[in-house]
């Protein structure tokens, strides 16, 4: 009984996070549908055998297209993420960088960060595994956390990522590689 309540509560939290994520981001960027877009490429699952890091690290400070390495994420239009205001100087312009697609035990994950005035302004997950019910549960949990964390960190700014030893195969779960790329 207790467990069920807990479960229900956590589901509720997830939903709340989901919704708050949508609203909070939509005021900033026009790309809230991004995670869902990945549905198509991931369900092909052909990439699962491809042994990770499929996308070659193409240095793409893309301001228009989000296409890059991994397949059809281009449909997420997005990219520039405008980020309101954008006054004058080129230094305050938002630039997006795509991380490598990385194989996790849940499937391929790819993130994109938006850098504005030298800070991480937003993190978009542009490719997530979305194969079955379980994946959907995992992602509906993980994706909003990731985004809200990054946006919450906007003032704090995440400069580096630490986790259980990353190997070159899964070049830092994408997030570090995206951060690196922003400063190469």
């Amino acid at each position, binding site marked *: 009984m207790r467990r069920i309540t807990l479960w229900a509560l956590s589901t509720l939290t997830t939903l709340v996070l989901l919704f708050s994520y949508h609203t909070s981001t939509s005021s900033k960027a026009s790309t809230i549908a991004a995670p869902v877009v990945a549905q198509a490429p991931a369900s092909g699952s052909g990439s699962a055998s491809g042994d990770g890091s499929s996308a070659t690290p193409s240095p793409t400070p893309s301001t228009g297209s989000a296409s890059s390495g991994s397949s059809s994420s281009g449909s997420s239009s997005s990219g520039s993420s405008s980020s309101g205001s954008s006054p004058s100087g080129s230094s305050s312009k938002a630039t997006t960088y795509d991380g490598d697609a990385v194989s996790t035990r849940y499937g391929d994950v790819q993130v994109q960060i938006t850098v504005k005035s030298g800070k991480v302004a937003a993190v978009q997950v542009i490719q997530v595994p979305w194969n079955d019910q379980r994946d959907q549960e995992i992602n509906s949990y993980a994706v909003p956390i990731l985004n809200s964390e990054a946006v919450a960190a906007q003032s704090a700014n995440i400069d580096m990522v630490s986790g*259980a030893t990353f190997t070159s195969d899964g070049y830092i779960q994408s997030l570090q590689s995206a951060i690196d790329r922003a400063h190469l």
Partner: protein
Amino acid sequence: MSAAPVAPPGPGATADQGPLRELSRRAFVEHVMGLPVSVHVRGDVEGPEVRTAVSQVFGLLRRADSVFSTWRHDSDLMKVRRGELSTEAAHPWLAEVEALCVAAAARTGGLFTADYAPETGHDPTGLVKGWAVEKAAAHLSHVPRISFCVNAGGDLVAGAGQGAAPTTWHVGIEDPEHPGSVRATVPLSRGGLATSGAAARGAHIVDPRTAMALDRPGSASVWGPTLLWSDVWATALFVDPELGRRALEKTDPAYRCLVL
């Protein structure tokens, strides 16, 4: 593969206000020892000393790999293991690291050890990475007017060069249950931070008390004055969070930890 930067300096490079072009920042990435190694530099990043020091960082790591790698048939460590090279003739780093392994086992009350596998004998690889990355990063502390942070597969060293104040690097600690997402943020300006866990490489940490590989989820992060000891303690805390934390507080109170 090359350490050469491919793009002009990051956003907000020169024109901005603030002391010493604070926003200038550049990253260099190479893969050494099977790990992605990212060197981030802030401050006067255009100086020739930066490029020299960064190549020295990668150079030292490659040298450490040639001495310690258990994947390379011709490493000093493997030659010594096979009896083809005497410890006296081997690179002096081997003895230095071996002494550190002994110290680490004593300091952690046996939660860290380099001698868990009787069939392979002494295996210092659990300590070598932190030791080597710290040694390598020291090259950057000779460069004037910069601060730096080196990330080698999730283990970090931060610091500052001559006459420069360190800057704060906000390190996102990855959620072990959801790779790619960040669970916590730790500010690091000088010193080291290491995380141990089974998430990314599968079970590769062995509990010295049982000689069994630890296959449980979760991770342990430790940060403090040095990466070497952060790394050792992170392993110890992943092996046994409770005992490890108590030993850490008693022995090395300058270090902080986060167990996820």
